[in-house]
């Protein structure tokens, strides 16, 4: 289906001027989170748009976490885990890879661009990689603009029915 641009129940979208992307990052306790920590202690600077959530393993990131992040206003979701073969729990990151593969396909059909959902393997020593990935993703998402997923929660009251179905 081509992207339709038209006014809908939700009303007009605000101009994305001065838009700062909100990225939710799930970083694995054993690799990527340590790398992010290292980036901090090494005083590396990277875009402040990322809210990091530490999980014991990238495999702990239930697809529902990703969906909920988007539903609640994230413009992008980043998952960071250990390199293949390095998972603290042996197989957790492979499971993440399988979920990610299928989930990004589902997200695409729901109109969420692939740049908004990213999986990266970043080991504990790769602070520079955290910086590069975060900066790149923030710029990509900034270029896409806000996600704005909200569906109007309230059903328009019947009295306004003619406005609903113009």
């Amino acid at each position, binding site marked *: 289906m081509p992207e339709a641009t038209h*006014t*809908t129940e939700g009303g007009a*979208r605000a101009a994305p001027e001065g838009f700062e992307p909100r990225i939710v990052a799930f970083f694995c306790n054993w690799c990527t989170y340590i790398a992010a920590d290292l980036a901090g202690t090494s005083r590396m600077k990277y875009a402040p748009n990322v809210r990091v959530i530490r999980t014991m393993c990238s495999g702990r990131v239930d*697809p529902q976490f990703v969906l*909920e992040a988007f539903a609640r206003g994230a413009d992008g979701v980043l998952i960071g885990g250990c390199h*293949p073969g390095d998972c603290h729990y042996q197989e957790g990151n492979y499971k993440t890879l399988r979920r990610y*593969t299928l*989930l990004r396909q589902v997200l695409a059909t*729901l109109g969420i661009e692939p740049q908004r959902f990213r999986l990266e393997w970043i080991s504990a020593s790769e602070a520079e990689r955290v910086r590069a990935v975060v900066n790149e993703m923030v710029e990509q998402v900034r270029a896409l603009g806000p996600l704005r997923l909200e569906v109007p929660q309230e059903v328009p009251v019947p009295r306004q029915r003619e406005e609903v179905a113009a």
Partner: protein
Amino acid sequence: MADAPQTGKPKVAFYWCASCGGCEEAVVDLAEAILEVVGAVDIAFWPVALDFKRRDVEAMEDGSLAASFINGAVRTTEQAEMAQLLRQKSKLVIAFGACAHLGGIPGLANLWDRESIFRRVYLESPSTDNPDGVLPQVRYEDDGRPLTLPGFFDTVRTLDQVVPVDYYLPGCPPTPNIILQAVRALLRGELPARGSVLAPDQALCEECPRKDSKPERLGLVEFKRPHQVLVDEGTCLLAQGLLCLGPATRAGCGALCVKGNMPCSGCFGPTSRVRDYGGKALSALASIVASNAGEEIVRIFQQIPDPTGTLYRYSLPASLLRRRREVRAA
């Protein structure tokens, strides 16, 4: 039509919103047991079968209906109005069937919106003859007489996204068994906590006759479709490579589809511990694919036609994202 006879029996209503009629059929499918139901209640409103009108409902006192069973999703303003009216007149509102419960098959329309649906149906479809490109209007004057149609929402909603719902009867459609159990519980006043889904809170695999042949660790490298295999009658369908959603789906149907060699497609929705059915089902599938290599994983999942339609077949409006993202004019 006059009021329903005053027999002192509890009054109930049945109503349909965006539905296929299968849920109405399910009531008739109760067979002899329907006599038990009809004997115990007065049906005060049932558009598919009885000639009561909306104004009859409007004339009722608030709360005078013991229960309204509403099937179908909410697609139009008329359905939203009727849901609101019945809510006002009823002590209990019961979402009947997958569409009212989770959005159901009509909820897949949330992959589109009003404009694209109208365009396809009234302008583009091969069988359409509409040279003036007329689209449905909520109001039209013909010789000074106004004609009206209900408004059509962009987004299909579950019943509880429109009015508060007391209980849910899952299924596409609900099976005679769970309907009868619910009606009996209602008549005896033995209903569980409000907001409950009236079916067991466990996965379908638990009540599946093929359960014992489901391996502890499944390792699939191929998904097959039912027409591609000669199904073994006794073995777990998932173990045979058929995409059975039993592990992610609530029990209560008696594994009817699985007994008929068809994999579960998830119409009973999730258990109470799951917020987003598709997300959970996706996770379950990711656990059983036996590959750690990126490209091979892609290839295996490509064997699932239409993943979104498969994982959210009955529950897109109830999902966390609820619909395909709408791109709005600046």
